[in-house]
């Protein structure tokens, strides 16, 4: 199932990453948020299914996502208010695309352990794609690696920004679209090769 849905997951994370500003730290935040949502929502939903019977249980998921994202936004703003202001909208967009992924994906297993285990490969895939994509975009577009400092973002410059002209195109949204198309193409080729190998 994981293999079958791999392209779908990669496309969904890339769609979220395109409007995000260029920087490794943004990818780290998105990967962290995704994992927090998954590993907190799966046990909570399991308990709700087991002990509570209400017809509008589906309404709990979006409310819970708003709750988690709002808390995360407050914590980020306490660290750096401008960064919190910048990333707020993106976090909410991610939460609702996560909701669609969760609804479309059948969480398999009857016990809590098996439900969580069935989701681990997708979480790893999501995190790896988000981090690698952000790192690649950061190096190509900014010629730097963006980390969190004490009170804001901190840039580690690998080369001067003028080393290769016009590379800042990759820091832009059209540039991110080009990188995401390349990443999807590479995954498509890998999947095709695996299918040929299986036959």
């Amino acid at each position, binding site marked *: 199932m994981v293999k079958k849905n791999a392209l779908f997951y990669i496309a969904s994370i890339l769609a979220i990453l395109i409007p995000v500003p260029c920087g490794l730290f943004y990818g780290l935040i998105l990967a962290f948020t995704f994992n927090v949502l998954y590993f907190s929502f799966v046990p909570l939903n399991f308990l709700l299914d087991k002990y509570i019977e209400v017809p509008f249980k589906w309404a709990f998921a979006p409310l819970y996502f708003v709750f988690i994202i*709002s808390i995360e936004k407050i914590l980020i703003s306490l660290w750096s*208010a401008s960064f919190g*202001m*910048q990333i707020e909208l993106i976090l909410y967009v991610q939460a609702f695309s996560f909701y669609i992924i969760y609804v479309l994906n059948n969480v398999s297993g009857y016990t809590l352990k098996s439900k969580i285990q069935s989701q681990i490969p997708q979480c790893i895939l999501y995190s790896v794609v988000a981090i690698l994509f952000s790192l690649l975009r950061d190096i190509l577009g900014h010629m730097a690696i963006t980390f969190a400092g004490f*009170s804001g973002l901190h*840039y580690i410059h690998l080369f001067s920004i003028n080393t290769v002209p016009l590379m*800042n195109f990759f820091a832009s*949204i059209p540039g991110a679209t080009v990188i995401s198309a390349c990443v999807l193409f590479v995954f498509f080729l890998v999947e095709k090769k695996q299918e040929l190998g299986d036959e």
Partner: protein
Amino acid sequence: MTDQTKKYLFNYGIFSGIIVFMFAVLFLLTIFSRNAISNNLKKEVSIVLENSFPNVYSVKDEYFISNHFNSLNKVYELENIDMKKEEYAVVVNVATIYGQFPAVFLYSQNDETQFVNFLCLDDEREVDYFSISENSSILHWINYISNIFNELEK
């Protein structure tokens, strides 16, 4: 009270309780963190203003315009050394081709709005980001901020 009613009450009670708890936590966190977040942003605005206009401005309290404007953006009163006119620092999220970036604008009472700088960016990138957005989103915000303050002054 029948068993069925008791079961319904239990289920609906627990479900509503969880939702009320979540929103209570969120409400309290928002209330208690509001001042700290505002002060954090105030410090960042002070740094940006100090880099662009050394020893000219000191950032005072948050200024309230309207619920709609202040929920998305922030406005701070400024104290100018020459004290001749009222000035404000406005922090808004500017949509650029590189994504969304908070930026500081300076509004003076005689209808002059100017862009100061982006927050969350280092010096090397600021020039690129500014030059590509100067005649589009930055110009839009300059006009928008002027209009908002003009309406307030009427």
